[in-house]
């Protein structure tokens, strides 16, 4: 019996094992290869429904147009008047940049997908196979985003080009670099927040109303609807929540609202949130699976 357990399993020698590699390197290579194939397969999967995907991507641009007209009406076409620090061109720039942040941070279907797989039992495959569910979903989502950028790139460029008169000039390099870093981190934060909400399904099978509430809060607290300063002026604590990194923060960097001297500090706080959310995800998964195997399965 014990011998059997200790028997070396010849079937599982790492694929890419070359003689000079240490076990540690082999392990790492094998892990990276899994991520890479999930990414590839994810891209292939997204491309299957290319028609639907292109259509839904383009339809998402409609709100941008209507929103720009809406602000135009609110400002009554007056480009010089300011509303709580924002002129009409400022507002258009803010809105466009927020949409760009959201192209990174929004995760359509992630929490719902996780919750459903827990409720209908398809989460089992991640427990039976030697894979890490969160890692798997992460690379799948990266694939999803890559395909999205390829399709949405041109329309985004067109919208920015059409609105170029209202946009501020290109900021200096450190600011641009900080902006790119904050966008990448907004993708990570978006993923981690949504997956965390999805994992709550381990405790409460029905989380759709929770997801709905989150969407509503996110709409305000991320600065998606109106500039976050407008809210933080009477609810200062919104600045301390992670939601602002999903939309407001990258836009604020680009619009010069974050002093260059504060960039490092602000980006570190964003990174801190990501680490916190990552740990929370791991804990939720660990205890969630434990609960799952203790109660249902």
């Amino acid at each position: 019996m014990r011998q059997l357990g200790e028997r070396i399993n010849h079937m599982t020698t790492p694929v890419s094992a070359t003689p000079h590699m240490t076990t540690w390197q082999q392990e790492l290579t094998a892990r990276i290869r899994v991520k890479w194939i999930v990414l590839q397969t994810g891209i292939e999967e997204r491309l299957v429904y290319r028609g639907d995907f292109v259509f839904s991507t383009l339809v998402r641009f409609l709100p941008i147009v209507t929103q720009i007209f809406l602000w135009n009406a609110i400002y009554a076409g007056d480009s010089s008047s300011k509303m709580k620090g924002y002129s009409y061109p400022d507002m258009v720039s803010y809105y466009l940049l927020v949409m760009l942040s959201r192209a990174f941070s929004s995760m359509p279907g992630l929490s719902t997908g996780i919750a459903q797989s827990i409720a209908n039992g398809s989460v089992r495959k991640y427990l039976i196979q030697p894979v890490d569910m969160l890692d798997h979903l992460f690379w799948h989502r990266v694939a999803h985003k890559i395909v999205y950028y390829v399709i949405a790139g041109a329309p985004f460029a067109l919208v920015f080009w059409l609105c170029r008169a209202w946009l501020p000039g290109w900021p200096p390099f450190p600011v641009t670099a900080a902006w790119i870093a904050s966008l990448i981190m907004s993708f990570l934060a978006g993923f981690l927040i949504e997956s965390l909400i999805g994992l709550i399904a381990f405790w409460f099978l029905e989380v759709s109303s929770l997801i709905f509430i989150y969407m509503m809060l996110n709409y305000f607290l991320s600065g998606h609807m109106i500039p976050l300063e407008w809210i933080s002026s009477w609810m200062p604590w919104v600045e301390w929540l992670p939601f602002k990194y999903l939309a407001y923060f990258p836009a604020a960097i680009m619009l010069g609202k974050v002093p260059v001297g504060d960039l490092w500090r602000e980006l570190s706080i964003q990174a801190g949130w990501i680490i916190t959310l990552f740990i929370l995800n791991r804990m939720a998964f660990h205890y969630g699976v434990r609960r799952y195997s203790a109660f249902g399965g």
Partner: protein
Amino acid sequence: MHGMAAIEVENLNRVYRVFRKKEGLWGSLRGLWHREYIEVHAVRNVSFTIDEGEMVAFLGPNGAGKTTTLKLLSGLIVPSSGTARVLGHLPWNREDAYRRRFSLVTGQKEQLWWDLPAQESFRLHREIYRIGAADFQRRLDELSDLLEVGQLMAQPVRELSLGERMRMELIAALLHRPEVLFLDEPTIGLDVVSQRKVQEFLSQYQKQQRITVILTSHYMKDVEALCQRAIVINKGTVIHDGPLASIVERFSRHKIVELLFAGDIRSTDLSRYGKILESRAPRVRLQIEKHRVSESLASILSDYAVDDISVMERPLEDVIAELFTADDKLVPSNR
């Protein structure tokens, strides 16, 4: 071959706490504050040992605890008490080392990417299970040959028939050469041809690879074709563990007697001996209680002119069905 235990299960228990809702709207409202739970013993003191290379059937009605036991052995759930070792591993520790050595196949779509051809899912499995390129290709060719799905590799899974999909699921489950395979109703919902194919494949593959298999199925033809040994479970308890053939002997309280009469008879008269299963003069098939067989035969032979008699066991399928329909019949007749 015998001797080395692949699966050892000792006094395994699994209790679920189930919320019991009172009837009607009032009950639902009360349930908001006051929840009553009942405990369901899905698995009760289950013990068995399965040797390496054995193929064992797991039989029982719906809700008997078969699936729960397989979930325990796959590490999906933890037991309330008792323990189990599969290939020396504690399943619910879910170590990668264990997860690379077994597979669970259920009748539901499970492992394949729905929108992509099965070959893409297989490529993913190759990396997940770290299968060498040469091994992978050889096994894939072998399996797709045996299961006759070679030409379907490039077709999206969603376009495959249920039978084809099931065969693809089997490939996905076997590519990494698991040493232990749990099959939970692998032929459920399949047509007769597909059922046959899956069955033949499993039989051939198991003999070839000598893997250890636990099979649950409602379809007795599967079980009879594949397994010699059966573990029968009902209400969470093992009620039989032994040769498949002995189930009939042990649980059937009846035998079937086929009579060929020399002259005309009124078959209705025969109903006093037992249930008439078929009556097509001059041939009659009767189901007679075991302990009354010889007495009945003597009486029939003295009353009628009989050309031929044969006494048979009842089909396994009927015995199992009867076994699971009525609780009072769960006690073995020869105990």
